[in-house]
């Protein structure tokens, strides 16, 4: 039997658009098997490439970017960007104006409203005329309770019947 075909020849034959008629290949099982392996590899290459191409996440088409490049920055995306930039500048100017027009803040303690004066009511005094005892009952404001009436007298004397 003549020499086996070279690897390169086998790789060529496996993918030939019109396979050449080679006498050796007709009779050699080994070379036939090698051509078969290259054909199998070709199928795997196709599958590998398709798998890889499908696995990669597809980015969103960026038509407006393309449009801008085609029309030199006159696309809607550029207009939107210009609009946002103008709005941003306007807002900055407004906030600066507002800040400038506000009165200068004064000392914190003097800015507080005047505190109402509170004078605690004196204790209720009961005079025991017979024994001459005088007891003092704390007024609701002094005892911490809410006063039932604002008309609590300052001093009440309860005469003994």
């Amino acid at each position, binding site marked *: 039997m003549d020499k086996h075909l070279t690897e390169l020849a086998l*790789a*060529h034959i*496996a993918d030939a658009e019109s396979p050449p008629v080679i006498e050796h290949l007709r009779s050699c099982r080994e070379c036939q098997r090698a051509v*078969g392996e290259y054909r199998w590899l*070709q199928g795997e290459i196709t599958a590998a490439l398709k798998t890889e*191409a499908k696995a990669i996440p597809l980015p969103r088409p*960026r038509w407006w970017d*393309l449009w801008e490049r*085609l029309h030199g920055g006159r696309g809607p995306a550029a207009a939107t960007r210009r609009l946002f930039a103008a709005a941003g500048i306007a807002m900055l100017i407004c906030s600066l104006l507002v800040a400038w027009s506000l009165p200068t803040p004064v000392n914190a303690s003097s800015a507080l409203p005047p505190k109402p004066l509170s004078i605690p009511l004196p204790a209720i005094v009961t005079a025991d005329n017979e024994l001459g005892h005088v007891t003092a009952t704390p007024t609701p404001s002094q005892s911490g309770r809410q006063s039932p009436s604002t008309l609590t007298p300052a001093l009440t004397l309860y005469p003994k019947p």
Partner: protein
Amino acid sequence: MVDERIIHDAQRGDPAAQRALYEAHYAAAFRLAYLFLQNPGDAEEVVQDAFVYLLRNLDRYDGEKGTFWAWLRVTLVSRCRNKRRRQQPPLVSLEGMEATGRFLVDPNAANDPARALENRGARRAIWQALQQVSEGAREAIILRFYEGLAYADIARILDCSPEAARARVAHGKLQLRRLLDEGEERRAPQGHPVETARAAG
């Protein structure tokens, strides 16, 4: 992919038709660019560049000479090749070689090689090995086995003769098979994955 009327309207400057043309081809263009560049960001950039060129030169498109996709493909591949030339050549990664072996000697593959080789891991290994194949051979392989082009068309796109395109594909397959063999031998000396799978199948 798109009918001639859309192309005709796009040529007349109709923005809606131009957009339809862009969106109809975007996915296919991105995927092909990705296979050439292996980087989604670069692929996206190249697709945009290609469309800028095509839409500016739409009046040059002649439907008699080929489909819009064929025209886009030529532009796209040319831009991908330019981009790769400007970049550093990718280093042959040891990690990739290890991965090649790892996937092909997956424990499941030992028991059921045919099934295992059909799984994504094996295809991933082929994809990784393909990154180590010489540039010209890889380009020709993508156009031949992914796009399914005839050698005459590959020759036009890669600017070479059909014989040279055929030789690139054959050399690429040879390199690929050796890389797969080496990866397999480093990991498991028991047998060639292709042969094992074929014997099982």
